[in-house]
């Protein structure tokens, strides 16, 4: 789960990590007032669920309150397109107004999960403010990593060794040790899959400050953090992805026209692959879960049909112990209330396959059944071509 920069900074501040003074605004007037309160100068930062904002004009310095008003007015409602948003971009609805800071030096600092060691690891670099992946690729010697022992947690002396490697000295180095310990505490207590400060700066006056921050929560741990629900900004998410989330379906919008419903993430990915291989273009990734129920199948099918790009639907359910007649009922229920005339191909495996097929074929829907994955993918592409030729 993603949150905005200002929310990440509020969390960091609650763990005694210093962040710039600032205020979230919803209108250009508020942005102007906030800038006045900060002494007349500010950094105007668009809040969207994506990185790369600076290059897209989403982060600008205002040298007087009226300028903050102008910048904010231009940004509010605008769709910012960055390398992480996709071509349609994300709409700016909140802007963070922050004090300007005189930066002495910049660093990168994060704690994330290292799957290779199955532990949390701390990553630090003296090359802050830039794309850390590029630093890792070109100058790996400038990246310092520390694998954190689950039994002992992060120790002061370990954090100190990193601070010294970053070239920090004296009291700033000790401040940095404390900051790293706080960051690790935050990572555990808030169940984060990533906490990142980039850049972490030492100001000209010699103070550490988290100038930008990013936090991702572990989706599996949301049940023990009710505060997360209120933090979610639904305006930053695809509406179909939101409704899918309500039914615990993993849905991702893609750019094609064949709606896909599959049980299991791995099989769903493989289904997209095989559609592409046969010249089809999937409209979405949708995992109804390994053991989908009739209700879930029906909901999933409705979500697919809500997407206007969808011109055909491919269902691939390897039920195994799931009954195929029940899956068929779910599809008919959902397609029936939408009076769906789109071509549908259903590939099912599991118990009661024949009964399921009979139900589908007798339902009056434009549906065909397939026994194997490849056969089904070919069939749906053929049906679409036929439709296009008739039109």
């Amino acid at each position: 789960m993603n949150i905005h920069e200002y929310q990440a900074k509020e969390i960091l501040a609650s763990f005694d990590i210093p962040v710039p003074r600032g205020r979230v605004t919803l209108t250009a007037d508020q942005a102007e007032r906030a800038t006045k309160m900060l002494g007349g100068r500010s950094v105007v930062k668009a809040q969207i669920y994506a990185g790369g904002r600076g290059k897209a004009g989403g982060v600008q310095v205002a040298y007087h309150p009226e300028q903050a008003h102008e910048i904010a007015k231009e940004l509010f409602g605008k769709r910012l397109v960055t390398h992480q948003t996709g071509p349609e971009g994300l709409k700016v609805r909140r802007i963070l107004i922050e004090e300007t800071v005189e930066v002495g030096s910049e660093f990168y600092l994060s704690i994330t999960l290292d799957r290779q060691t199955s532990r949390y690891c701390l990553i630090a670099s003296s090359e802050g403010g830039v794309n850390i992946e590029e630093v890792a690729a070109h100058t790996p010697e400038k990246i310092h990593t520390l694998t954190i022992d689950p039994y002992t947690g992060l120790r002061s002396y370990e954090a100190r060794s990193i601070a010294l490697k970053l070239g920090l000295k004296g009291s700033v180095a000790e401040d940095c040790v404390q900051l790293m310990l706080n960051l690790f505490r935050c990572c555990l207590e808030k169940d984060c899959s990533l906490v990142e400060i980039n850049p972490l700066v030492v100001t000209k006056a010699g103070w550490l400050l988290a100038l930008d921050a990013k936090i991702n929560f572990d989706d599996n741990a949301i049940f023990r953090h009710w505060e997360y629900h209120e933090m979610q900004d639904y305006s930053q998410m695809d509406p179909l992805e939101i409704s899918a989330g309500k039914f615990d379906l993993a849905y991702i919008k893609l750019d094609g026209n064949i709606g896909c419903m599959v049980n299991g993430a791995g099989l769903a990915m493989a289904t997209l692959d095989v559609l592409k291989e046969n010249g089809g273009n999937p409209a979405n990734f949708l995992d109804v879960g390994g053991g989908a129920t009739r209700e879930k199948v029906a909901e999933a099918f409705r979500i697919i049909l809500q997407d206007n790009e969808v011109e055909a639907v491919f269902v691939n359910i390897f039920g195994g112990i799931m009954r195929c007649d029940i899956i068929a009922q779910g599809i008919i229920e959902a397609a029936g209330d939408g009076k769906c005339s789109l071509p549908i191909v259903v590939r099912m495996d599991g118990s009661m396959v024949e009964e399921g097929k009979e139900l589908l074929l007798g339902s009056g829907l434009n549906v065909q059944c397939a026994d194997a994955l490849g056969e089904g993918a070919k069939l749906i592409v053929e049906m679409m071509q036929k439709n296009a030729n008739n039109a």
Partner: protein
Amino acid sequence: MSILINKDSKIIVQGITGKTGMFHTRECREYGTNIVAGVTPGKGGIHVDGIPVFDTVEEAVRLTGGNVSMIFVPPPGAADAILEACDADVDLAVCITEGVPVRDMVMARQVVADSNTKLIGPNCPGLITPGECKVGIMPGYIHQPGKIGVISRSGTLTYEAVKQLTDAGLGQSTCVGIGGDPIIGLKFIDVLELFNNDPDTDGVLMIGEIGGSAEEEAAEWIKENMTKPVASFIAGVTAPPGKRMGHAGAIISGGKGRAEDKIATLKACGVSVATSPTGMGAAMLEALGK
């Protein structure tokens, strides 16, 4: 022969009185699995289909001799259930539960790694030695006893693979679903090593997906150590970067975890890679030189 489980395995089900636990206990038993006990705190003393239920794993192990635990405990208590199984010194704990918090697993995995217990999962379909023992939620009927080992990060995609193997006349020694989470017990390499040492496994089918670097690490290990042919398939060739495809681990981020890189590394290490998910059985036949 087989790996990890066989006809002599005695299974304990943690979370046996829950809806899912009870359903799959019956399915496993119907397949022929020897389920000796169930564990649900607070329900010790009752029976489920004649299977005695205990309050603790320790008691279940002591009184029934169970050596494998199948875990259906919901996410908030799943890591605790793994630790309890480990503390009771079972040989193998198989955690089917989906949605276990990562922080809990980081600690649980470390404790398991320092013990004699092996862990499979969480968020996995479990494992099966066809014709002998099923500890998991996979459909038994698609399997056939034989000599191919199967390892996979995915659930239903494994069923697809197994069906293709069976259709191609290739039976399986043991099929292991290691799970799709970022933190899991046994990884590809651990299971590859077990198959490599199993005299009754002739070849291995390894099914991976985008995200992480486990497939690349496995490929290097295969090149150095594996004496048996390996075939593979990687799901997500067409997945767009930055989008998490269902599994917590399945994401291409920062240019890492791409399918093409994994496929290239596997091929360079002598693995036969199926380019299409419909060709997994054929890739295994090719690897075996058939």
